């Protein structure tokens, strides 16, 4: 065996450098090595040899279109290429034998092929399959508006839109009222969607039901929602056809997702003409957990002193609000969140009595509300996800009504004794939900789980004689549900689900199937269909009933066309909604209570939405229009009529402009609703009849808001201050929401906003407790 001399020269160097230690003493092994030596040497030469193989080819997608920029590589080697504009590639490699060729490109599934390289040129024709990513996959969007930073077809709003919509007054539902499907109802709170009542919309935070989402109702004055829009990162507003994960809402679901860990620790201070609040958020050093608390006090005294109110307040509305939260990242994919809220508020006012001239009606309400929400999400393995949540609400309302003379002394007038009463209600609401999700191939997945809802309402009605009528109502609603998202092809997806519910109060069950299909017509363009059956228990305020009752039922049919391209969104939707088994009521003992499920109705309409951030530089606007044709026979309606909360035409124009130079955000909004019908329904014996009916004037409202952000432009600002100046109903247009009638029905009075124009000024300061110094110091 001869070994060339240079081998040994090199060896000295190499052995010095690498100092390999071999302890090979086994004779047998040496023999094998001897035989294998030439093979090894050959392999060594081949590997470092000069024989090259040319690999070339072209890459196309499954429609035959060339894809450029595709990375072609031989696994575990440096050799490869990138396709040119006609999809062609060519490279040389010294690799031999079986090699894995990989072609990869963003938006496509990776392609792998085993090649046998023997020196002859290889010519390949590669077809890459489109990868369905959330980014460009078809989305089930029928009936759904989403405000989130997720780039999805249904996300037509950004999270910031919720707070920067001029007519929203910083209220979550205010912004949603500028979207098609929602009514401009000003005399009571809530979202009235597609001919449905406010009670037909349910709100969910992190999956669980929220009771008392709005402050307790005051006659003819719409109340705000309790929760700050800043605690949510995502809002999904479904105007119909929503998922089987949610139930007990005939018309609409408002699904809110709370924020995860804050970006940094910060202290907040807010001072406005109405309120002041302070809060602190602490982010742990390891950025794995956070906690926070805030307190706010709202008193409308100052505002009411400047802007004259229709009512005469003996106790101006005053609110104490406090909240606390903690969020813990339990693992890379897990998050545990708690949000707790407390509110105590009261108000009392008198207004000229419509029933007896010269006298006053007094209304007083005190409300205490506790809300707790605990939510946990976690991924188990690669395929399973778990979402669990519990929420608990304790709500207490004390309402007092009576009459007063001009000197504000309580009086009881003959024939109007019933106007003196008090109602004390206590409610305990518990909701728990568990959802398991399993990912299937691609974006497909199945979800299933169960929901448990418990409510306990106690009410004491005290009449003018001090006689008490206590009542209580307990109920369990248990539900199980399953749903599948199926991506049948790149452009075709379906969501199919079923919900099964049992109500202990009704002793009845229901099965509610839901189905949506979406088809992608082109880039950014899709068509969707949705169908579903929705059940809801009769509203608790009409219970208990002496008769046996059933679930109320709505069936939705929705067809949608949507195009979202280049910062422009267009959406058109037609719908038909059929109501069955609506509750009918009768009036007895000064109380309206449910007597049957003989009510019915329907709603149909067409809606348009157009948003454009592109045409005019720095200007962002959206226009929405809804046409609604609805009639229903429910509660005390004599027959099927268009309800007083449904306008035929509703429209909004929302404009936003950011002026860099001034560091200002200018926001404007115009809301319109055609005149809604109004009725005075009286009784003819036990049958209801119209004492009066008509149509209120059209509703017009122009709002304007300026947000001034002076911190813009400062490097590492210590405080982020946002000044807000807002005027609603800027042109002081007279708005009428309806009419109220005297007890005897002879007098009627317009229900109008408490004041026409309203001006709001405030400053919100966030002190970033900047931790970058800390981070740098700990790194050094």
């Amino acid at each position, binding site marked *: 065996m001869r070994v060339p001399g240079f081998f040994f020269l090199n060896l000295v160097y190499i052995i010095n450098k690498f100092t390999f230690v071999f302890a090979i003493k086994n004779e047998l092994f040496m023999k094998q090595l001897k035989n294998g030596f030439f093979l090894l040497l050959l392999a060594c030469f081949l590997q470092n040899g000069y024989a090259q193989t040319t690999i070339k080819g072209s890459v196309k997608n499954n429609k035959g279109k060339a894809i450029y920029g595709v990375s072609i590589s031989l696994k575990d080697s440096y050799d490869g290429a990138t396709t040119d504009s006609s999809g062609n590639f060519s490279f040389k490699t010294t690799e031999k034998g079986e090699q894995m060729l990989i072609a990869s490109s963003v938006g496509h599934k990776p392609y792998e092929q085993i090649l046998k390289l023997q020196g002859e040129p290889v010519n390949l024709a590669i077809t890459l399959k489109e990868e369905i990513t959330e980014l460009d996959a078809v989305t089930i969007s029928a009936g759904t508006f989403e405000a989130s930073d997720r780039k999805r077809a249904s996300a037509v709003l950004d999270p910031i839109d919720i707070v920067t919509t001029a007519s929203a007054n910083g209220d979550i539902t205010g912004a949603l009222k500028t979207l098609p499907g929602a009514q401009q109802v000003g005399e009571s709170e809530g979202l009235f969607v597609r001919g449905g009542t406010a009670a037909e919309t349910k709100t969910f935070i992190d999956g669980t039901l929220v009771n008392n989402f709005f402050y307790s109702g005051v006659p003819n004055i719409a109340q705000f929602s309790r929760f700050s829009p800043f605690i949510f990162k995502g809002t999904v507003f479904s105007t119909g056809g929503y998922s089987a994960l949610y139930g007990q809402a005939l018309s609409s679901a408002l699904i809110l997702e709370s924020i995860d860990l804050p970006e940094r620790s910060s202290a907040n201070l807010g001072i406005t003409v109405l309120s002041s609040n302070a809060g602190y958020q602490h982010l742990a050093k390891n950025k794995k957990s956070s906690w926070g608390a805030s307190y706010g006090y709202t008193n409308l005294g100052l505002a009411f002193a400047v802007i004259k109110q229709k009512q005469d307040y003996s106790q101006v509305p005053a609110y104490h609000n406090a909240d606390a939260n903690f969020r813990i990242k339990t693992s890379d994919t897990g998050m545990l969140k708690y949000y707790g809220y407390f509110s105590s508020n009261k108000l009392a006012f008198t207004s000229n009595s419509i029933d007896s001239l010269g006298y006053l009606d007094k209304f007083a309400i005190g409300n205490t509300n506790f809300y707790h929400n605990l939510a946990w999400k976690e991924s188990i393995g690669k395929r399973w996800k778990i979402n669990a949540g519990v929420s608990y609400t304790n709500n207490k309302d004390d309402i007092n009504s009576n009459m007063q003379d001009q000197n504000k002394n309580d009086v009881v007038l003959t024939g109007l004794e019933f106007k003196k009463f008090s109602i004390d209600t206590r409610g305990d609401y518990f909701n728990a939900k568990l959802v398991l999700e399993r990912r299937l191939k691609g974006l497909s997945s199945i979800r299933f789980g169960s929901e448990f809802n418990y409510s306990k309402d106690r009410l004491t009605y005290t009449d003018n004689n001090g006689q008490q009528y206590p009542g209580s109502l307990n109920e369990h609603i248990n539900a199980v549900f399953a749903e599948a998202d199926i991506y049948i092809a790149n452009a075709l997806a379906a969501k199919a689900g079923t919900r099964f519910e049992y109500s202990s109060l009704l002793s009845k069950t229901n099965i509610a199937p839901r189905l949506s299909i979406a088809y992608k017509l082109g880039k950014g363009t899709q068509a969707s269909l949705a169908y579903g059956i929705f059940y809801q228990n009769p509203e608790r305020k009409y219970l208990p009933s002496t008769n046996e009752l059933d679930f109320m039922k709505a069936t939705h049919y929705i067809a949608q066309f949507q195009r979202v391209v280049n910062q422009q969104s267009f959406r058109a939707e037609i719908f038909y909604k059929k109501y069955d088994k609506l509750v009918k009521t009768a009036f007895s003992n000064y109380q309206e209570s449910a007597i049957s499920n003989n009510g019915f109705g329907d709603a149909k309409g067409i809606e348009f939405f157009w948003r454009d951030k592109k045409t005019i530089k720095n200007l962002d606007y959206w226009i929405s229009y809804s046409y609604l044709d609805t009639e229903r026979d429910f509660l005390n309606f004599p027959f099927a009529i268009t309800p007083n909360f449904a306008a035929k035409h509703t429209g909004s124009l929302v404009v936003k402009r950011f002026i860099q130079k001034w560091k200002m955000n200018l926001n404007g909004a115009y809301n319109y609703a055609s005149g809604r019908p109004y009725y005075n329904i009286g009784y003819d014996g036990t049958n209801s009849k119209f004492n009066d009916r008509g149509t209120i004037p059209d509703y017009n409202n122009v709002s304007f808001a300026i947000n001034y952000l002076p911190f813009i*432009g400062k490097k590492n600002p210590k405080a982020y201050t946002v000044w807000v100046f807002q005027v609603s109903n800027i042109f002081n247009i007279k708005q009428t929401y309806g009419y109220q009638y005297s007890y005897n029905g002879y007098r009627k009075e317009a229900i109008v906003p408490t004041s026409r124009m309203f001006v709001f000024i405030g400053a919100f300061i966030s002190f970033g407790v900047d931790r970058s110094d800390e981070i740098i110091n700990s790194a050094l």
Partner: protein
Amino acid sequence: MKKQFLFITAFLFAINSFSQSEKYTKAMEQLVPAVDTTTSVDGLNNLANSFQRIADAEKSQWLPYYYAAFANVNAAYMMSMGQMGMADKTDPLADKAEGLLNKAAELSKDNSEIYCVKKMIASLRLIGDPQNRYMTYGPAAEEALAKAKSLSPANPRVTLLEAQDKLFTPEQFGGSKTEAKKLFEEAIKKYETFKPETSIHPSWGLQQAKHFLSEIK
């Protein structure tokens, strides 16, 4: 004979690892200079793919992952040249770059150069949708750059990125041409003294700094 086999076996092992590391250095040496000279989107994409092939074959070297991430970020910047709000086009590249950079960061912890690219990715996401992202990615970019600076105050690329921020930020947002100019000059000074660890360690940016400086003048 026994000894000869031992030597030869040792040699074969050695030559493989030796040639492997030589092959790696050689391949990198061919590509690294292109980082400073490639300006087309296609060219940068090609470069990113070449680095990624090396990265995926080597698996234990942070440099090819780092360069692949860097080239992807640059491709996205070139794609969006001067235009904001192109998140739908630039985000996929930012995602890709972030994935690659995370791999580099796993292999080389507390690396000023990696934090520089981290900053560039955050800025890229920021300009993709400034109105909705300035509260998240603005501070994230600042934090990454501050970390890069704390890890290596002499790193000229940190100063270059600071200078670019000053130059491209509108004045009412805190930008300043005069301050940018000072920073570019400071960066150039740092480039003169900065010695990369090896021929394939990051050394890019001098031409850029000179170019921007000449534009200000």
